[in-house]
């Protein structure tokens, strides 16, 4: 019950709270934010992505170095809005962990970590329309960014593309129609 409440707190902060914090910036031109701040959160990012895509009989996101991909994307490619959202999201995850469990994310038990991700995952609006407006106004939310970059980074990594998925660099032929095998994996590339 307490945990729930605290997480609702996170959600409010990650959603509306950030907006309040940065509203002015969002409405008066591009928010200026200092890049280069994410490396110090690398261990948190790494821990989180390895829960999003954990090691099983195929490698997890951490082994595929997805944390480096995310770092690179956020520092060099992300729009400012997303950078701000992402950075604040990381701080808030740690704050909430400390409030709820008395430890930062890395120090939490696997069960606690899973609970936190579950709540973050449920945080994005089920309403597509409201979601779209939110994204347009404020950029993608923290967990949306983290989750989709984890998928992208993993599926384009060597381990992800060749072990979880099927990757053919040079198909040489095009068989337009084959009967699928039960073990058929999805193609890594289109």
């Amino acid at each position: 019950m307490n945990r729930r409440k605290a997480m609702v707190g996170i959600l409010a902060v990650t959603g509306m709270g950030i907006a309040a914090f940065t509203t002015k910036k969002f409405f008066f031109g591009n928010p200026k934010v200092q890049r280069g701040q994410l490396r110090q959160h690398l261990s948190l990012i790494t821990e989180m992505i390895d829960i999003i895509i954990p090691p099983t009989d195929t490698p997890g996101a951490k082994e595929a170095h997805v944390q480096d991909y995310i770092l690179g994307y956020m520092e060099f490619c992300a729009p400012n809005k997303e950078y701000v959202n992402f950075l604040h999201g990381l701080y808030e995850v740690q704050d909430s962990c400390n409030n709820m469990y008395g430890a930062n994310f890395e120090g939490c038990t696997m069960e606690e970590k899973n609970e936190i991700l579950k709540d973050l995952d449920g945080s994005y609006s089920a309403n597509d329309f409201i979601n779209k407006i939110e994204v347009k106004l404020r950029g993608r939310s923290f967990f949306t960014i983290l989750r989709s970059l984890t998928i992208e980074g993993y599926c384009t990594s060597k381990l992800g593309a060749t072990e979880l998925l099927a990757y053919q660099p040079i198909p040489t032929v095009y068989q337009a129609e084959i009967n699928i095998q039960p073990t058929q994996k999805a193609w890594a590339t289109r």
Partner: protein
Amino acid sequence: MEGQENIYHFDAIVVGSGISGGWAAKELTEGGLKTLVLERGRNVEHIKDYTTAAKHPWEFEHGTHLTQEELKERPIQSSHCNATDKHFYVKDSEHPYIQEKPFKWIRGYQVGGRSLTWGRQSYRLSDLDFEANRKDGHGVDWPIRYKDIKEWYDYVEEYVGISGAVNSLAHLPDGVFLPPIPMNAIEKHLEESIGKNYKDRMLINGRVANLTQPKKGRGPCMYRNLCSRGCPFSGYFSSNSTTLVDAFNSGNLTLRENAIVKEVVYDEASKKAQGVKIIDAITKEEITYYAKIIFLNASAIATASILLNSVSDSFPNGLGNSSLQIGHNLMDHVVNEGTYGTYNGLLDKYYVGRSPGTIYIPRFQNLDDKTKSTDFIRGYGIQGKGSRENWETKKTEGFGITLKEQLETPGKWKISLGGRGEVLPNYENRISLDYQNRDQWGLPLVKVHFEYGSNEIAMMEHMTKTSEEMLRKAGFENVGSYRTSPPPGSAVHEMGTVRMGRDPKTSVLNKYNQMHDVRNVFITDGSCMTSSACQNPSLTYMALTARACHYALNQLRSDLL
């Protein structure tokens, strides 16, 4: 002395090395002319300079994403390129132009031009297209008909290698085809459904310049579907892999890169063009090259701007511009937002390899009285592609092992459709030169003024509506269309600015793409187009170029130029 002179004197000059310039180079050099090809950008050597072609997805630092810095340099081009092929697109920051209304001018300044990154769709025009202007009064009449160009379509298709199927459609003539790229299960499903539900239209294999069989040491296609990076297997047609190679092998080609053409130099005494003045892109030195004939193949907007900047006593409004039509009648193809849908079935079917081709629904409006539209004149075709969703397109939920399972399995079938419609020639749609604003070489900036008319807008709405309807009738779910339509120019089919016509008072080029006013200048890039039709235009540029080259060679032999 003589040796020195040879550096600057040629039989022919070709401006531009893209898809039509490459053809001019090949035909003229093989016809025995010492030919100088001028390219404003850098050299791109076939295979060697396809620096990303062999890279795996994980070898790009940020996947396909451009960095914020790269985006800032490419506010316009970035909608058409990504990290894997950005080096074949210009930086807008280095090559500015003025948009009076939004118009995307997508450019590739390098040897091979946009033939490296083109969509490879290759369709013939027919008399439905060549007669359209005369019948409905828009623009001027084409000076040619299908019978004038048919053998030249045959000629270039045989060389290029177009994969396609014979469909026996009068308004989309069959050509010299390699075997088509086959349709996958969902594409066949839509083909059958359209055949069943509609009498007026059919779905066919897209006709693409990808080699389904080897040709003259090129190809075949390896089905990587990474064409825009340049193909190390020469699996698709580009100037670099074909025409320029043959031109070089003729022994008659001189290729000069980094040569920005400033103007065509006119000789008042002979009433002919003498040569071309260039600015070296790097040293900024001005040099004049001389030749008996000149082919302009710089692409529609650039060719018009060169002519407008070529001012002389006889032509104060630009070379060969007594009609005052140069720069006007700019056209592109109108493209809609794009429609998609998923299909809950055929889940036992998949494919191996990645098709570089498409499916195509040829124009089915205003072909005859029965197909007459009340909303618009002329028409559009629809291109599409079907595939099964993977991690890029699939909507996944949750995290952990369940997420991995969702990523691992092939998703539903999905089809995307996009219309390509004819844009009417309109004098008001134009490019001009702004002498108050200049680029780093001191050349006036190009100013583009372009707006869709009501016909284009009606067509755009219609293509979205019919695309959605066809998918619904075929049992697709989640059918929808993207809500923002791409700005004009997005089809990268700009054309019409130096049009062909019968009357020198209302057109710039005659039926052999020769300037009415200056008989030794030929223009065979997109600027020559009298109307836009709705077919992807490159094949027509190639056929017109080969045809004009043979005409010019004959004229030269008869001493008429």
